[in-house]
């Protein structure tokens, strides 16, 4: 029987997962917002973050919670270098070339990981964050709860960074008008690289947290990447808070439709919501472009 308790439990699970989707989407939106390039390798970079956490645990015994700074720093660096080595050359390329290039990057990273680390599913056997917390009949996994809290904190931190600091202003200025910004002495390339770094840094945080409770394998990022694009488009390209909200909406839709209709169709519903929103509002919920 579908009691209210079970429905509430499902919504809570959906919100928790949604916070993770949200942070991943925010990273993607940032990158897009800066230079109008959709990073199709986003999901696969998330996979790299998860593996970083895994190897830190397996080879050095560092718990995922503690390797969070490591993942954050590593993914930031990877994002930064990705900009300079690959993306910089795509700034003036055709739309098709941009899509294909980041797509190719994603495929490359994914199957390189598969070649090096095999397609086996890995888990972190005994993370610090384990078990569940029961609050009046609602059970939430401790790792999931902590993960979503940290994702929200990361988002708030990011928001403050972008909207209240000089660095944030510089980045925003560059995204609005590159030439004007450079006239003011802002190095647009550095800003873009920074944007990539921060966008991928989000993945570092999300990935390290997910490593606590999710299976880790080379193709795990693929689905998350897809959901992130849908979230960004749903929220509307150019709106970072929109992406965050959309991520949470998607989480709830996924879990609720899984419970009420059928678990087998949960992703179909996520995509359906995207199509519906986009047909009514061709620029997403809060999009500006």
């Amino acid at each position, binding site marked *: 029987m579908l009691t209210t308790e079970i429905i509430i439990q499902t919504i809570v699970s959906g919100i928790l997962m949604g916070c993770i989707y949200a942070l991943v989407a925010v990273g993607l939106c940032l990158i897009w917002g800066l230079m109008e390039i*959709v990073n199709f390798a986003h999901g696969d970079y998330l996979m790299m973050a998860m593996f970083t956490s895994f190897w830190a645990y397996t080879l050095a015994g560092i718990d995922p919670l503690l390797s969070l700074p490591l993942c954050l720093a590593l993914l930031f660096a990877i994002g930064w270098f990705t900009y300079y080595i*690959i993306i910089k*050359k*795509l700034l003036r*390329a*055709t*739309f*098709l*070339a*941009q*899509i*294909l*290039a980041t*797509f*190719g*990057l*994603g*495929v*490359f*990273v*994914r*199957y*390189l990981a*598969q*070649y090096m680390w095999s397609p086996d599913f890995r888990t972190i056997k005994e993370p610090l964050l384990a078990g569940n917390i029961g609050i009046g009949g609602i059970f939430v996994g401790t790792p999931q709860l902590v993960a979503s809290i940290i994702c929200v904190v990361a988002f708030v931190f990011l928001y403050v960074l972008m909207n209240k600091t000089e660095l944030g202003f510089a980045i925003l200025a560059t995204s609005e008008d590159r030439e004007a910004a450079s006239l003011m002495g802002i190095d647009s390339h550095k800003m873009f690289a920074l944007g990539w770094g921060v966008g991928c840094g989000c993945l570092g945080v999300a990935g390290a947290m997910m490593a606590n409770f999710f299976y880790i394998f080379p193709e795990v990022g693929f689905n998350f990447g*897809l959901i992130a*694009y*849908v979230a960004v*488009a749903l929220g509307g*390209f150019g709106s970072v808070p929109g992406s965050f909200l959309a991520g949470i909406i998607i989480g709830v839709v996924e879990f609720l439709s899984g419970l009420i209709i*059928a678990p*087998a*169709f949960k*992703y*179909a519903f996520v*995509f*359906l919501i*995207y*199509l519906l929103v*986009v*047909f009514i509002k*061709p*620029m*997403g919920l809060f999009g500006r472009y």
Partner: protein
Amino acid sequence: MKNKNWVWLIIGAILVLLFPVFFTLPFPRHLMIMIFLYATMGLAWNLIGGYAGQISLGHAIFFGTGAYTSTLMLMKLGITPWLGMLVGGLLSMGIAFVIGYPCFKLAGHYFAIATIAIGEIAMVLMINWDWAGSAVGLTLPILEEGLWNFEFHTTKAPYYYIAFGIMVFALFVTYGVDRSKLGFYFKAIKGDLEGARSLGINTHRYKFYALALSAFLTSICGSFYAQYVLFIDPDSTFPLLLSIILCLVATLGGVGTILGPVIGAAILIPISEFTRIYLGGGGKGTDLILYGFLIMIISIYQPFGVIGIAKRLRKRESR
């Protein structure tokens, strides 16, 4: 076309036709069949993506529709796959219209992601549709060999010629489009949508034509695939990766050109097949590592594909 090019083409066609006579082992023939198949699908994608400039990342839906339509008609109604192929093609065209109607309103990224969304929804539906085999897939019955049954067991040669025929058909269609008013309109839409519209071109209608043609050709390949392999499931016929590879085949060779997709297939497919055979059976994904790398390099340095490179070389030569 210049006389010299016609001569080369005829020589090429003769060599291709004689190929199975000299290469009797199954693997080389399989390789060529795969090249023909992907070249055709690349050509199909090229019509909407290359000529009309609408980047579709959901083309696998047409491949899958073709494969499943002809197979289901065979298994449930006993109808020959040739007819099933035709019906599948028409059904795919219908799906193209249904997709196009709402999606062509969308621009750029939104359109691309919409095509991905539709492709993924199709995948989920097929995985859960019990009548059509769901995730288990459909294993075609092993029938007596013959053209009517569209099954050959002792030799791949008939498959080879059929696949070649399909590719030649697709080449003719592309050539026809390229030289016709239709093609002119497609290129206009790609180049400058607003400009085209202001010239009075009904852009929606022509986008439809491009997508419908593209869908039909892709669908035929799906039916062929089903008859060749005798097993289909959602993972092998509707996946996003397939849609990307179709796009890649056309782009690698040269988007918006007639021979581009053929060249793209001729480069990509051997990579995939050779790595599969020689780097240990069972797809370690080494071919995909190479693919990914190639895609990046081509997109960054020469987005006009191999043909673009060839043109640049020729320009340098003629100086």
